[in-house]
C-alpha cells in the first residue's frame, strides 16, 4: 500500500493550485485575494513539509520518489524563499500592472515542479518535475507581455532551455540504454564498469544540468533573462530554480553516477573554475544591476559546484550551506533593488544608486553589508559560506581549485566595491520613495540581520545540514 502521507505536501500544493485557479477565474477582481491566499498556502505547505522532517529515508511509487533529509531540507529552503519572494514583490507587481491571478498560480506550479525535482529518484520523474517548473518559468519570464525586453527574455529562455532539455533527454536515453533502468538506485548498481556510452550519457546530462544552474560555458541565457524579466521574476530566477537544480546535481552525481567519479569529477571541476572566474570577470563592465546579479550568480554557482567536486559529505554539506547563505544574500540584495523606486517607477541601473547614503543611510548601510558579504569579506555570512567550501576543497588537497576560487573572490570584490563606491562616494541624486510594503521591509531586515550576526553562532546552519549524509 502506498503511504500517501509522504507526498502530502505535493498533493496539497496541487489541490490549492487548482482551487486558486478556479476561484481566480470565477471571482472578479480577486487577484489580491489570490495572492494572499497563495502566501497562506505556502505557509501550510511549509508546515506539511516540517511534519515529514523526521523521516530519514523513504521511497514511494516503486522507488521512484524519495523523501530523505536532503529533500526535506531543500524543500523547506524552497518554500521559505518562495514566501519571502512573494512578500517582497507584491507592490512591484501592482505598480508595474502585472498583478494578475495567473502570477501566483504560476509561481505555485513551478514550486510544485521544483519539489518533484528535489524528491525525484527516477529519470522520468525528474524530467516531469523539470518541465513543470520550466514551463511555468517561461511564462513568468515574459509575464510583462507589453514590454519588449520581457517577452524577449521569455522567448530566449524558452528556446535555450528547450535545447538543454533535449540534450538532457538524449543523455537519459543513453544512460537507460546502457544501464537498463531509469531508477537512480538501479542505475548506480548496473553501471559499475566503464563504458564509453555511459560517459557520453553523463556528459550530456551534466551539460543539461549546467544549463539549468547557468554554469559557464552554458550561462549565456542568464544575463538577458535576468535583465529582461520583471524584477519580481528575476529574484525568483536567482534563488528558487538554483536550489532545485543544485539538489538534482547532488542526486545525479552521488546516486546514479557514484561509481563513475573519475568520469565526472574533472568536468565538474572545470565547470566550477570556469564559472567562478568568468562570473567575476564578466560582471566588471555591467551597468544594469540585474545583469550584474546574473553574472555574480554565475560566479556563486561556481563556488557551490566546487563543494560538490570533493566527493565527501563535508563537501556536499558545504555546498548546501553556501546555497542557503547565497539565497539569503540575494533576497536581501533584491529587496534593496525593490526599494529603488521614485514616483511609481523602478530603477535598476547601478548609477541610480549614486549618493544613496546621504538620503537613505539605513538602506545604504544594509546594502553595504550585503555587498561586502557577497564579496566574502569576514566577518559577514558570505565569508563563512566560502570558508566552508574552501575547507572542504583543501581537505582533498585540491589546491588549484581553492586558489583559483580565492583569486576570483578578489576580482569579484572589485565590482562589489564599485557599487559601494557609487553608493557612498558619489554625489547624491533625488530621494527615493520610502513608503514600502511591510513585507519588503521585513524581508530586508531579517536577511540583513542574518548576514550581519551569522558569525556569532555559525553553527546554526552546520547543525541543520550535518544530518544530510549522501555518501
Amino acid at each position, binding site marked *: 500500500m502506498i503511504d500517501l502521507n509522504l507526498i502530502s505536501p505535493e498533493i496539497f500544493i496541487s489541490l490549492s493550485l487548482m482551487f486558486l485557479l478556479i476561484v481566480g477565474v470565477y471571482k472578479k477582481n480577486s487577484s489580491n485575494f489570490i495572492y494572499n491566499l497563495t502566501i497562506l498556502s505556502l505557509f501550510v505547505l511549509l508546515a506539511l513539509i516540517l511534519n515529514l522532517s523526521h523521516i530519514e529515508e523513504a521511497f514511494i511509487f516503486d522507488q521512484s520518489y524519495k523523501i530523505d533529509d536532503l529533500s526535506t531540507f531543500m524543500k523547506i529552503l524552497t518554500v521559505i524563499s518562495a514566501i519571502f519572494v512573494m512578500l517582497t514583490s507584491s507592490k512591484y507587481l501592482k505598480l508595474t500592472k502585472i498583478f494578475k491571478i495567473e502570477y501566483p498560480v504560476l509561481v505555485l506550479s513551478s514550486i510544485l515542479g521544483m519539489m518533484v525535482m528535489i524528491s525525484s529518484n527516477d529519470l522520468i520523474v525528474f524530467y516531469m518535475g523539470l518541465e513543470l517548473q520550466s514551463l511555468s518559468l517561461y511564462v513568468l519570464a515574459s509575464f510583462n507581455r507589453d514590454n519588449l525586453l520581457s517577452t524577449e527574455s521569455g522567448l530566449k529562455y524558452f528556446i535555450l532551455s528547450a535545447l538543454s532539455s533535449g540534450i538532457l533527454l538524449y543523455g537519459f536515453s543513453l544512460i537507460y540504454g546502457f544501464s537498463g533502468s531509469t531508477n537512480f538506485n538501479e542505475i548506480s548498481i548496473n553501471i559499475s564498469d566503464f563504458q564509453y556510452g555511459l560517459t557520453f550519457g553523463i556528459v550530456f546530462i551534466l551539460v543539461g544540468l549546467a544549463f539549468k544552474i547557468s554554469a559557464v560555458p552554458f550561462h549565456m541565457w542568464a544575463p538577458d533573462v535576468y535583465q529582461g524579466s520583471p524584477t519580481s521574476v528575476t529574484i525568483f530566477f536567482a534563488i528558487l530554480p538554483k536550489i532545485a537544480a543544485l539538489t538534482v546535481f547532488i542526486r545525479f552525481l552521488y546516486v546514479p553516477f557514484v561509481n563513475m567519479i573519475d568520469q565526472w569529477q574533472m568536468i565538474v571541476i572545470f565547470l566550477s573554475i570556469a564559472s567562478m572566474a568568468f562570473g567575476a570577470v564578466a560582471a566588471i563592465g555591467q551597468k544594469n544591476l540585474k545583469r550584474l546579479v546574473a553574472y555574480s550568480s554565475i560566479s556563486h554557482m561556481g563556488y557551490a559546484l566546487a563543494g560538490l567536486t570533493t566527493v565527501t559529505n563535508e563537501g556536499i554539506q558545504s555546498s548546501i550551506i553556501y546555497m542557503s547563505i547565497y539565497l539569503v544574500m540575494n533576497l536581501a540584495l533584491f529587496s534593496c533593488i525593490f526599494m529603488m523606486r521614485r514616483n511609481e517607477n523602478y530603477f535598476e541601473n547601478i548609477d541610480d544608486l549614486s549618493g544613496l547614503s546621504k538620503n537613505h543611510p539605513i538602506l545604504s548601510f544594509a546594502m553595504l553589508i550585503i555587498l*561586502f558579504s557577497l564579496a566574502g*569579506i*569576514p566577518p559577514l555570512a558570505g565569508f563563512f559560506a566560502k570558508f566552508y567550501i574552501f575547507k572542504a576543497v583543501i581537505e582533498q588537497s585540491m589546491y588549484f581549485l581553492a586558489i583559483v576560487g580565492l583569486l576570483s573572490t*578578489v576580482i569579484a570584490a572589485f565590482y562589489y*566595491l564599485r557599487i*559601494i*563606491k557609487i553608493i*557612498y562616494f558619489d554625489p547624491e541624486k533625488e530621494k527615493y520613495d520610502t513608503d514600502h510594503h511591510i513585507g519588503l521591509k521585513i524581508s530586508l531586515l531579517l536577511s540583513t540581520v542574518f548576514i550581519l550576526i551569522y558569525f556569532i553562532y555559525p*553553527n546554526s546552519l552546520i547543525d541543520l545540514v550535518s544530518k544530510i549524509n549522501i555518501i
Partner: protein
Amino acid sequence: MNIPILSSLILLPTIGAFFIFFVKSNNKRYQSSKYVALFISLANFLLSLYLWFIFDNTVSEFQFVENREWIPGFVNYKVGVDGISILFIILTTFITSLCIISVNSTIKNRLKDFLVAILLMETLMIGVFCSLDLLVFYLFFEGGLIPMFLIIGIWGGERRVYSAFKFFLYTLLGSVLMLVAIISIYWMTGTTDVEKLYEIGIDTKYQNLLWLAFFTSFAVKTPMWPVHTWLPDAHVEAPTAGSVLLAAIILKMAGYGFIRFSLGLFPVASEYFIPLIYLLSLVAIIYTSLVALMQEDMKKLIAYSSVAHMGFVTLGIFTMTQQGIEGSIFQMISHGLVSAALFLSVGVIYERMHTRLISRYGGIVSIMPKYAVVLMIFTLGAIGLPGTSGFIGEFLILIGTFKKNFLVATIASLGVILAAAYMLWLYKRVIFGKLINNDLKKMVDLKKSEIFILWSLAIPTLLFGFYPEPLINTIEVSVTNLIDTYNLNIEIYLAKNN
C-alpha cells in the same frame, strides 16, 4: 579574575559604535556623539592601562586567556596576551583616543559615520593583537578592510576612490593565500589554536610553502618593497585620522604577525628565508629613503619614510636575536607614536593652508613657534636621535643585525643617515627659510586641542627615549621564550637531517 577583560576591550568600541549609529542625528546631538565616542575610547584606554598594570611580566605564558567554543570541534574563540602583544593593544587604544579628539577639526561632514567607522576599526585592531586562534585572527585581520576602505573612500582627498580600491584589493589579494594556508594547517594538525600549534609543530616539509602564504599577506600589509605602492596613495588620500590609524597601528599588524606566526609557527622556514627578508628590508630601507628625499608632498614623504622604518622592523625581527626582536617591537611602538604625530602635524598645517606641497611653505617658525617645537621633537624621533624612542629601537635592531651579518648591518646603518637627510631637509624647507608665501602670514599657532594631542604624543616619545625600561621589561621574557623555542626547533631540525 572573572571579568573577561580582553573581550571587554574588544567589544566596548563596537557597543559604542552601535549606540552612535542608532541614535538619531540632528545638529544638537551631532556633537554629543563625539563625546560618546571619546568617552568609550578613553574608557578603553584606561582599561588597557589597567591590563598592563596587572600584567605579570615575569612569565612567558599567555595571560587573561579566554577560551570559548565557537564552531564546535573546529574553531574556538580564544584570546590572550603576552609580552609581545600587550603593548600593541595599549598603542591601539591610545592612538584611537587621540584620533577621536582630532576629528573635530579634520572631519567636516558625516561625523557620526566617521566615529562609527573608527570605533569598529578599534575593535578589529585590538582583536588582531589578542587572538590566539588563526581563524579568529584572520577574521579580525580581514574585517579591518571594511571600515578602512570607507574611511579612505568617504572622507579622503581628491583621488580617494583610486586609493581606497588600491588599498582594499592589494590587501585582499595578499590575504587570500593566508586563508588557504590556515585551512591547510587545520587539516594537517587538526587545530587552529596557536598555543597548541606551538606545541605540536608543523611538518617541516610544508613549512616553506605555508610561510610564503603568510608572508604574502604580511608583506603587503607591512608593506615591504615591492608591494608597498598602495601605502603612499592610501596615506596621501586618507583623512588625517585615517592616516594616523594606518601608519600607527595597521602597519604594525603585519610586524606583529611576523613575530607571532612566521617565527612561532614556521621556525625552519623562517631560518631558510632569512636572506630574502634581509634583501627586501635593505631595499626598503635604502630605496624608499631615496624616494622619500624626492617627494614634494609632505604626506607622501612621511609615507615613504614609514616603509623605510618598517624595513628596519622586518630586519630586526629576522635577526632572531634578543636585541633585534626587542628592538623591532620597540621600533614599532615608537614609529606608532612618531608617525601618528607627524601625520597629525601635517594635518595641522594642511587644515590652515589646504595644501601639502612642501614648496608652498617655508619660514613658518616665526609665525608658529609652538608648532615648530613639537615638529622638531617628532622629526628627531623619526631620525632616531638619542633621547627619543626612535633611537632605542633602531639601535637595538642594528646591534642585533651586527651580531648576525656585518654587511647587512652596515648597509642598514646608511638608512639612518638617509632618514636624517630627508627628515631634516623637510623640516628645513617647511619651518625655516624666508617667509615668501604671503598667505602663510594668516596662519595661527596651535590651538589648545592640538597642543594637547601633539604633546601627549611627544611626552612618551621623549620619555621612552630616556627611560625605555618599562617597555623592555614587559616584552623581555616573552621574547626570550620565543627565541629559545625557535633555536630549539632549529636544533631539532638540524639534528634530524644530519
